[in-house]
């Protein structure tokens, strides 16, 4: 997926124990464009020419970028092919084997005569033989295809490669992400890495190492760590710290989402839709809730929360947080804060990290029923200021109300209604509806009063006593 740069092209600045990748930016736009043009101009020409032309672009300051750009570009959208063997019958390997069998030669005369013989054998001329001999060498290959790519995209791809290459020499990778935990966590497992979690300023940091890291400083896991990077920077908010060993010195490299624009756009990273967060928003919206993603920092007293969602229903608002990495202590502290501040917050957490009271845990899929129950508990009680309230779903009712049809009705009111129905004993639907209208109620109450509407035709409903 990503072109990795060889060590000698690693373009970084080291200063007082810190290491800064020299990311390409607006100033390098021209250079990126020239590299792209060099390749485009070489369509149908030899790759060796591209190499020569690129060399001319290089100077002491930019040579790493020129070569880095070229490498990323080649990996991304350049195709090379052997000019022979594709559109001609001549196979370079066969041509040279034929020549070698008649070699070696030590004079021009001898050489000419071997070449002539070969030309006759392959039914072509000497010049073609000469060209075909090593036509499959990289320098002799012909650039056949260069895809469209903008300098901006090239720069972004290069920057990601540079960041990943920097992490190659990493001893320990520490990071935080606001979302996309599932993919990150899976990647860590799949790559055989180990992790430890710890809390810093209210955030759960993940520290990634390998099995042998406690025993020796090793860069063996750097390659695997580099592979996690694209998943981390896919999140909305993230922070990465890498401890990098170079020439017997440990350098720190830190970077966070303020530099997001340096890297490829989301869709060029990995598809987004499968994420847990996306699914959550989709499901709740379908159930008639209004869902706001990443509503920002919620302050409550001296605490601050950064919930993932704000779920709204009528005037009620509940926050939901899906916790990626956690320890029981972390969750406990979080819940304690919630209790102290009275913030309506539902915490949903992966169960790989333990079990905790007051938290909805899950392994593969979020149990939406359970989550909805928790959300409803925290939604303010429907305002039962009136005697009759239209409700939907099952909510908790105040003790002096009953749920009938689509309404919450004060018990005393319902008794009055029943009495009135007995007294008037309506015979038609119109009569029944007239009484109901006085109370602000609709047809769905009728069965509880012992009546039923029966449709005889499309527009001739009859009222029947049960």
């Amino acid at each position, binding site marked *: 997926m990503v072109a990795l740069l060889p060590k*000698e092209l690693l*373009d*970084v*600045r080291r200063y007082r124990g810190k290491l800064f990748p020299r990311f390409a930016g607006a100033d390098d736009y021209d250079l990126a464009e020239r590299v792209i043009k060099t390749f485009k101009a070489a369509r149908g020409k030899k790759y060796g020419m591209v190499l020569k032309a690129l060399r001319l672009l290089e*100077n*002491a*300051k930019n*040579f*790493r970028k020129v070569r880095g750009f070229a490498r990323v570009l080649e990996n991304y959208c350049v195709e090379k092919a052997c000019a022979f063997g594709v559109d001609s019958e001549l196979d370079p*390997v066969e041509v*040279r*084997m034929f*020549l*070698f*069998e*008649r*070699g*070696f*030669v*030590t004079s021009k005369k001898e*050489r000419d005569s*071997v070449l002539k013989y070969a030309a006759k054998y392959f039914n072509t001329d000497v010049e073609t033989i000469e060209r075909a*001999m*090593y036509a499959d*060498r*990289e320098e002799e290959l012909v650039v056949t295809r260069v895809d469209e790519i903008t300098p901006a995209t090239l720069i972004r791809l290069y920057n990601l490669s540079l960041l990943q290459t920097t992490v190659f020499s990493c001893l320990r990778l520490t990071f935080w992400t606001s979302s996309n935990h599932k993919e990150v966590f899976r990647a860590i497992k799949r790559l*055989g890495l*180990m*992790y*430890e979690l710890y809390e810093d300023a209210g955030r759960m940091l993940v520290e990634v*190492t*390998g*099995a*042998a890291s*406690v*025993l*020796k400083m*090793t*860069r*063996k896991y750097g390659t695997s760590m580099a592979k996690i990077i694209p998943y981390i920077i896919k999140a909305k908010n993230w922070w990465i710290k890498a401890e990098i060993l170079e*020439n017997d010195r440990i350098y720190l490299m830190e970077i966070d989402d303020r530099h997001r624009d340096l890297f490829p756009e989301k869709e060029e990273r990995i598809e987004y839709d499968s994420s847990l967060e996306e699914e959550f928003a989709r499901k709740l919206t379908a159930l008639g809730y209004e869902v706001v993603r990443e509503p920002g920092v919620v302050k409550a007293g001296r605490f601050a929360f950064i919930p993932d969602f704000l779920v709204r229903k009528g005037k009620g608002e509940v926050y939901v947080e899906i916790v990626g990495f956690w320890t029981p202590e972390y969750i406990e502290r979080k819940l304690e804060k919630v209790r102290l501040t009275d913030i309506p917050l539902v915490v949903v957490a992966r169960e790989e990290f333990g079990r905790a009271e007051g938290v909805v845990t899950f392994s593969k899929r979020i149990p939406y029923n359970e989550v909805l129950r928790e959300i409803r508990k925290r939604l303010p009680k429907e305002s039962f200021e009136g005697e009759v309230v239209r409700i939907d779903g099952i909510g908790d009712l105040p003790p002096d109300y009953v749920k009938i049809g689509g309404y919450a009705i004060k018990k005393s009111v319902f008794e009055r209604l029943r009495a009135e129905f007995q007294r008037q004993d309506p015979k038609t639907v119109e009569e029944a509806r007239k009484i109901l209208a006085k109370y602000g109620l609709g047809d769905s109450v009728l069965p509880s009063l012992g009546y039923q509407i029966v449709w005889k035709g499309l527009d001739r409903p009859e009222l029947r006593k049960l």
Partner: protein
Amino acid sequence: MKATLEYDRGTIVIRGDVHVPHAKYDSRSRCLRALAYKYRDIVDYLQRSGVEYEDNVINPIPSPYFEADFELRDYQEQTLQRWLEDKRGCVVLPTGSGKTYVAMAAISEVSAATLVVVPTLDLVDQWKEKLSVFGEEWIGEFTGRKKELKPITVATYDSAYVNAERLGNRFVLIVFDEVHHLPSEAYMQIAEMSAAPYRMGLTATYEREDGRHELLPDLVGGKIFELKPSDLAGKHLADYAIKRIYVPLTEEEKKAYERAARVFKEYVTKKGLKLRSVEDFHRIVMATGYDEKAYEALRSWDEARKIAFNSKNKLRKLRELLERHKNDKILIFTRHNDLVYRISKLFLIPAITYRTSKEERARVLEGFRSGKFRAIVSSQVLDEGIDVPDANVAIIMSGSGSAREYIQRLGRILRPSKGKERAILYELISRETSEVTTARRRRKGGGVAT
């Protein structure tokens, strides 16, 4: 509670109320952890101190009893006996002296799952062919092209490194061919992450320029037996002569060389640098990141070297030598691929570089063996492990300052064979250039009788 030992991704996890040497507490998994290669020490310790323990570390690939008889030469037998004393250690024998047979005899003695680690795919093929005397069905390879786990598995250093965590507890014996490769920062982890209690290293050149061979006693076991080419020449190895030919640059090359060399020298003098070692040189390379002058200096140095390495007169000299040895089997070595292809095109000699495909390489080598081709030109890849029994002339067009590379290139023509009288090694050196020093450096410490 009984202590338990388990293998976990290149490490040994120790649970239970015990203390063992080489282990550290790991808060991530709340246990003691040690690098896998300390397994033998840890078990020794537990046994000595009478601690009860359950050992689940080695999960070897089930293997048959290997039966094969080898007729070993006296020094090979001596080497084997020495190794069997502790079943650890490095064997230093010249190329062509049959190191492989010592290892195979060891495999036969141990008769348990064995991993052989070698530097190149060519060597993988050669080892597999030789090991097939144990029964072809028991031999597998673990490389970039195939991932098999068999009782005797041959792996490249690269694949063994990438999969070190996975391979570490599947073998009882681990053999490192060309063991001088092992102490690099990356490869050494093949040894560290392996729990194999028995280990053998093979090489013709134990010492490394960077001094890291000092790590070998800990990783594999120290040097247990050593012979130099001169110890075996004439009897077990072909007799040989070395001829050094100093070739002048052409007038034009000389001018270009001096111009380029001056830029580099001026930079070095101005910065007050002294170039005594590879590290000193590396410092200039590092400086190219912030110092434009360093970049220019380095580019000039590279240019100068290329002029010296690839001079026209060397090609003329090569022509002479080829004419002189029309009836011999010749190996030509260069430093750069460019020159390989130039020579190949000019003299119509088959080339082998790291870019050559496996099929073509096999075709070239087979052609050389059968006599269809009388010469091969190569950059570095031929240095190790390509079996070319009856080559008797080697021509070094250019090379690095490494003594190891030099010895191995020489080794290529020293395999004894019928009718081979005296092998000759030619070294072409551009006169009055830094190549003279480079050539001197590679001879020094090479242990080669000249």
